[in-house]
């Protein structure tokens, strides 16, 4: 195996130019939490590591118009503790606080890395799809803003070898929307067996006005099942509705994963359980006097 080279990039322009110049042998290095195990075990042979940690365009968290703009290099602990995120996208702050591996991994792992590796068991995607986030993606000479669900694939190719994820734009939640997140796992740091991220708007008569729900860790890509739950709109919250959420969610799963976290039938059933818990959490957060 020939030795890899290293390129420390100082501008986004040069970084995208470098990726186009090098082609598929180049590997982007950000936080390294996903990349390093495959280098340590010689699973991945890169020709060049393109270090993007010095790119200012990929840093910081700020409000831009009606969006929270989060730099792709922001690490999980920075995001989960950021006041703007906690105020305007608390679902995301919570989901990233559940990333396993301890403080060490959450101090180094970036939201951009969590997104582009598109791992079915990771935490960022279900929350960001529920929040209808967009991605700012840069390629040599062009800049695109793409809804996140258009980008999610199970091909393992991420964004493609010449693109860099620059920022994540998350629409600011109105105060009337409440959120819930449930990650079913065997231990604190474990990967998930089923995840559900939910946004619910409920009125003063406890009738559901709007619902969004995304399942993670059950299929090879997260599944947005908001459409399957539209029959809940206008109905009153209660035990019957929770049973409906569970059965509708479980039957919305098309092709469940079987792995050491559980076989397909179990995953489908737990998708329903996680969905029910995330939905109930969202309602409880909106109306603490219920439940």
């Amino acid at each position, binding site marked *: 195996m020939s*030795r890899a080279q*290293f390129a*420390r990039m100082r501008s986004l322009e040069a970084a995208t130019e*470098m990726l186009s110049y090098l082609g598929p042998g180049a590997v982007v290095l950000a936080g390294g939490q996903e990349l390093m195990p495959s*280098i340590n075990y010689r699973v991945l042979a890169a020709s060049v590591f393109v270090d993007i940690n010095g790119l200012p365009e990929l840093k910081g968290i700020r409000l831009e118009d009606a969006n929270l703009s989060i730099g792709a290099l922001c690490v999980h602990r920075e995001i989960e503790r950021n006041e703007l995120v906690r105020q305007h996208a608390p679902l995301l702050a919570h989901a990233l606080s559940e990333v396993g591996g301890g403080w060490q991994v959450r*101090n*180094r792992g970036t939201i951009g890395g969590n997104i582009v590796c598109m791992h079915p068991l990771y935490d960022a995607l279900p929350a960001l799809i529920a929040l209808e986030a967009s991605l700012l993606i840069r390629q040599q000479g062009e800049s695109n803003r793409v809804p996140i669900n258009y980008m999610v694939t199970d091909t393992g190719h991420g964004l493609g070898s010449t693109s860099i994820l620059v920022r994540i734009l998350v629409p600011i939640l109105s105060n009337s929307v409440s959120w819930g997140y449930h990650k079913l796992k065997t231990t*604190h740091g474990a990967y998930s067996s089923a995840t559900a991220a939910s946004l619910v708007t409920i009125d003063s008569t406890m009738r559901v006005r709007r619902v969004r729900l995304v399942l993670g860790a059950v299929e090879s890509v997260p599944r947005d099942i908001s459409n399957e739950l539209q029959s809940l709109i206008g109905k009153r919250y209660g035990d019957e509705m929770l049973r409906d959420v569970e059965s509708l969610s479980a039957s919305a799963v098309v092709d469940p994963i079987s792995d050491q976290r559980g076989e397909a039938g179990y995953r489908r059933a737990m998708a329903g359980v996680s969905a029910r818990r995330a939905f109930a959490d969202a309602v409880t957060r909106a109306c603490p006097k219920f439940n």
Partner: protein
Amino acid sequence: MAVTQTMDEILEDDVLLTCRLNGANCEELVTPGLSLLDFLRDQQHLTGTHMGCMTGHCGACTVLIDGEVAKSCLVMAASAAGKNIQTIEGLSPPDGNLSTIQQAFRDANSFQCGYCAPGMVLTAVSLLSTNPQPSDQEIREALSGNLCRCTGYRSIIAGIRLAAERQLKLTNKPTGPNGV
């Protein structure tokens, strides 16, 4: 602005790593792809940072980077330029005594085989620096990235609790008359 570099000029075969290591300046050539863990152990002979899984699960290789815990097997050494790195070797004062947290671990028997201990101690440093009086639940959460294969977690938590008590006593030392 300087003349734009060509792409080939940016590519490096070996990378000059300039950082702070345990309070001293460090300048070394490192191979692209080399983990910070291998750099510390093989090039700097700082073998107190332990190699466990190389996948980021076990936390035996925990170090502090700019005061925050990181798993050194998951950090590419070449990307640590400009950082302030602290290993277990840099924790005790030069007089040979143990730091408060190390002494507390020793007094509370927070070791069985000791393999996880350097990582546990550094995570405790990070925890107590931001939360001097953590609850047991907060200690457990802080330790979630560190595995102890002997499962000696209770004594490790007791060690961190003891360290917190001692640190608090040190910072709350009674002052003399007139608050001096």
